[in-house]
């Protein structure tokens, strides 16, 4: 408290006071790793947005005379077995991976939060039904469940996204449920009831905003795993289909040339690693900034 009181006044513009988000940003800024993570994430987001403009070649421009060329000044990341520029494909791929990562997580968060809030707030048999459903889903290894879902829906990038969203629902659902259960007991909820506020309003204006911090953290980390899962499904041939430059799919196509042309595998692999690392670092930083237990 005292520490807060001393640093807050100078850098806050007049008329604005330190809200919880501003405070979280102050905490986030303190961690160098978190900032590095945020930088990496921003870099890939920018790449996905302007990628097609800066990529030297299109994704499907083949030059059969230049197959499996080592990195050079003409092709920075080398070329693949069909003579396509790997740098261009990696840049284009960022759009696919981030798209899958963000939207699958948004899907899981929305569905998971709704189920979790209902389970946590209404309790009793509703809670039992929803929680057991989550338990059943969590009993499967997640990649196996994703494979099963894609097999039913048919292999495509969109279905891979849906599968990834579905398998992550129980994680968010349980997180929100436990948060709602603990917030429900907080005195300000009783106090809100004490001034005559109705249940739905309490749920949406008091319980929901207060349970969002861990979801933001978990969501950031989940983008990383979703990207990995999408790559894994792509690698197995269940995600993006050729000729889409999905990073996992590129790895799968490149594995026959691992000995002779390792660059075909190294660069898509590095791209996956870097984005996942970026999201994880950022997620950890957010947790430190948002988790009240981490505050002193």
């Amino acid at each position, binding site marked *: *408290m005292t520490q*807060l*009181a001393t640093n*807050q006044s100078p850098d806050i513009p007049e*008329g604005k*006071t*330190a*809200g*919880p988000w501003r405070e979280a940003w102050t905490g986030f800024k303190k961690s160098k790793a978190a900032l590095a993570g945020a930088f990496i994430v921003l870099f890939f987001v920018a790449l996905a947005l302007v990628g097609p403009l800066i990529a030297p070649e299109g994704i499907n421009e083949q030059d059969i005379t230049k197959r499996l060329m080592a990195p050079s000044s003409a092709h920075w990341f080398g070329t693949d077995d069909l003579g396509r520029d790997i740098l261009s494909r990696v840049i284009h791929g960022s759009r696919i991976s981030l798209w899958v990562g963000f939207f699958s997580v948004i899907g899981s968060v929305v569905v998971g939060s709704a189920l979790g809030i209902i389970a946590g707030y209404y309790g009793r048999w509703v809670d039992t039904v929803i929680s057991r459903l989550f338990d059943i889903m969590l009993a499967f290894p997640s990649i196996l469940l994703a494979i099963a879902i894609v097999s039913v829906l048919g292999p495509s990038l969109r279905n891979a996204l849906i599968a990834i969203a579905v398998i992550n629902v129980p994680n968010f659902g349980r997180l929100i449920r436990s948060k709602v259960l603990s917030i429900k007991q*907080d*005195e*300000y909820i*009783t*106090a*809100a*009831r*004490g*001034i*005559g*506020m*109705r249940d739905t309003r309490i749920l949406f204006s*008091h319980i929901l*905003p*207060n349970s969002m911090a861990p979801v933001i953290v978990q969501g950031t980390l989940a983008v990383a795993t979703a990207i990995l899962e999408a790559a894994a499904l792509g690698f197995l041939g269940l995600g993006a289909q050729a000729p889409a430059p999905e990073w996992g799919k590129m790895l799968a196509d490149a594995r026959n040339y691992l000995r002779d042309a390792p660059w075909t595998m190294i660069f898509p692999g590095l791209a996956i690693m870097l984005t996942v690392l970026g999201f994880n670092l950022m997620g950890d930083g957010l947790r430190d900034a948002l988790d009240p237990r981490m505050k002193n």
Partner: protein
Amino acid sequence: MVGKPKVLSVNGLRTSFFTDGGIVPAVDGISFDLYEGEILGIVGESGCGKSVTSLSIMGLVPSPPGKITGGEILYGGRDLTKLKEREMRKVRGNDIAMIFQEPMTSLNPLFTIGSQMTEALLIHTNLGKRKARRRAAEMLKLVGLPRVEEIMDEYPHQLSGGMRQRVMIAMALVCEPNILIADEPTTALDVTIQAQILKLMKKLNERLDTAVLLITHDLGVVAETCGRVIVMYAGQIVEEGPVTEIFRNPQHPYTEGLLKSVPDMRFKQERLEPIPGNVPRPGAIRHGCRFAARCPYRFDRCTAEDPELYGTQPGHFARCFLRDKKEETAHDETLVES
């Protein structure tokens, strides 16, 4: 208190918790009246049913497992226990308001003081946002907060405990309720702030003529603020009377024990005398006086029969056989001697 009208009348209230371990009657048939403009204290050890009494009046007993199983709470000609949730919502905050023990956790950390202050006004009155805000600011001024306009835009974590409790009091009083229930309002504060808050509550009580039900375990708080006091033990009222009477001449051995376990600066005491043992689990004692096991004056009748509230003086009652006329002569001397 004679002459003042009653604002709240609790008759034979019974609130039980239906747990896996059986039915726990946390409040077991208590009756009392609250008069206009008075401060009535309810004291007792933890677990004696004080808080459940206040939550029952507000209709906020956590359910399940809690439930009001009997009795009535009369307010303005209506029985609050029979009101529908929708009607009860109109009573809460508007007619009867409550402040809680923990000022640190009673405010939502994500909203500004101003927005939380105006919430009750927006629910219960037709005031527009701007007018509600002005009203809220006036109330904050009334509870003695400095730089009100700034505080309206601040978040709870930026205020100290004492300031937050002032905000809570302002929030509770903003709709000008007839009754304010204060559940241990000063327990979480340090002593100097405690005194300020009590003084403030007394001042507001006189100024706004709000009846206050002050729930506390601290006899010092009662002595400083209340006109009348109810002593609760194991879900029952064991003694009721004017504060000065009860402090000078406690009629129930439990009250006497409570008074002895608090340091008294007027006398040089070697040691405090604690009451041996703990409050029994509600419902554990089915027959006889609930305090019998811990009572130094216990005799055969105490474990055999249930004592009633015996009137000892006008307005002063005690639930003890020592006060029963038949036994009085034999046992009164022992009480006086100690």
